[in-house]
């Protein structure tokens, strides 16, 4: 099986691959954690990364020499500008999200259930107190991609019913884990891509939610 250190890179690489063929302007938002890594695998110049604190055309992580303390993404990482980038206030940034100008958001999650519900804003218990842009993003982005590890301490994050508080009424359109890529279609998740080192049987054993398998499975990027 995949070594833990390779897992985030694999998930990010496969999330980026979903959109690397777009042929028109495509605005992408990236959440905290694994989704932030997606920027490193975006190769298509039609893709513009927007960050909800107020920028379109957000670049990759800045080296200490390039870094400007006032230039950060929504994960508070110091980032670069790209040619043609533009700054916005936060209301306009969320206006873009609400009005459907963000083609896809890639977010992490604690749980996704088989109805497509996403739980990604809080684990109750007093250690967290924040929501950030999660609810606005799942409600407003045209496509919601969840990029997350398949399980947490051996417990499937793809569940029958979310036990944690949900983030909104919206469905997760695509779920990318280190084992497979699932597409939500007509009320079901369909496994369409599988990792080279995983079998359908293994995925069934480690997945709580019920999913269908595509007739022809593609192999995920390594």
């Amino acid at each position, binding site marked *: 099986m995949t070594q833990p250190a390779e897992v985030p890179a694999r998930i990010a690489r496969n999330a980026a691959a979903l959109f690397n063929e777009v042929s028109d302007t495509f605005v992408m938002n990236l959440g905290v954690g694994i989704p932030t890594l997606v920027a490193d695998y975006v190769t298509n110049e039609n893709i513009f990364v927007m960050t909800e604190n107020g*920028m379109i055309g957000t670049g990759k992580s800045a080296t200490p020499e390039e870094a400007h303390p006032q230039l950060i993404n929504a994960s508070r990482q110091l980032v670069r500008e790209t040619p043609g980038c533009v700054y916005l206030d936060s209301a306009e940034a969320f206006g873009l999200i609400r009005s459907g100008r963000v083609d896809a958001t890639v977010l992490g999650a604690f749980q996704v259930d088989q109805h497509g519900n996403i739980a990604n804003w809080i684990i109750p218990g007093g250690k967290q107190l924040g929501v950030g842009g999660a609810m606005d993003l799942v409600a407003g982005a045209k496509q919601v991609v969840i990029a997350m590890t398949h399980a947490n301490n051996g417990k499937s994050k793809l569940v029958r019913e979310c036990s944690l508080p949900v983030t909104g009424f919206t469905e997760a359109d695509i779920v990318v884990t280190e084992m497979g890529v699932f597409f939500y279609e007509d009320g079901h998740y369909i496994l369409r891509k599988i990792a080279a080192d995983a079998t359908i049987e293994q995925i069934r054993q480690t997945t709580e939610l019920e999913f269908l398998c595509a007739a022809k499975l593609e192999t995920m990027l390594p």
Partner: protein
Amino acid sequence: MRKSKIMSAAQAVANIRDNQTVMVGGFGRSGTPFALVQALVESGRMGLTIISNDLGSPREGLGLLLNGGQVSSLIGSFYNWNPEAIKAYNEGAIQVKLMPQGTFSESIRSAGAGIPAYYTLASAGTELGKDKETRIFNQRTYVLEEALRADVALIEARVADPLGNLVYCKTARNFNPLMAAAASYTIAQVQEIVELGALDPEVIVTPHVYVNAIVKEEHA
């Protein structure tokens, strides 16, 4: 003679009273008016309601205001970067109202634009939306959100002219222009003050009419 808006941080925050509501710009460290926050800490004002996206990291900026017991409630979006804020809330020392970040920014924008309330999808169907009035548009459930205004706004910009026209710096813009328009009294901390007429009118982001006081950040 025009009255000058340029003053020290201590003079500017002297307008803030106990139990008032203060908006503070910034996202993490970017765009946070640290000198103004420090002056507010030193003013010893108590019972403050702080409207800010987050509370930064512990033991700096707004975290110091919390540590000094000067805060009675927080209205914002994300406190996970400051575990001391979470602890204070869990212990009942402060009240917290959590808002989706887009709702937080739009509510502030609305206050500045004279809009009392609006509908949004964010938080519908969630714990944060459970007590809100709802209405269906185009078969989707929206929640009613009210404008969010403050007595005083503390904001940060890169450059001001003597009237208080402002230009920001990169992602430090964030909530600052919205807050400038949403408070009765707005104090801008700036890195530089240029001569009147030196700013290109086409690039000014915040018009001076929103700004009541200008404080030049001192570089030690």
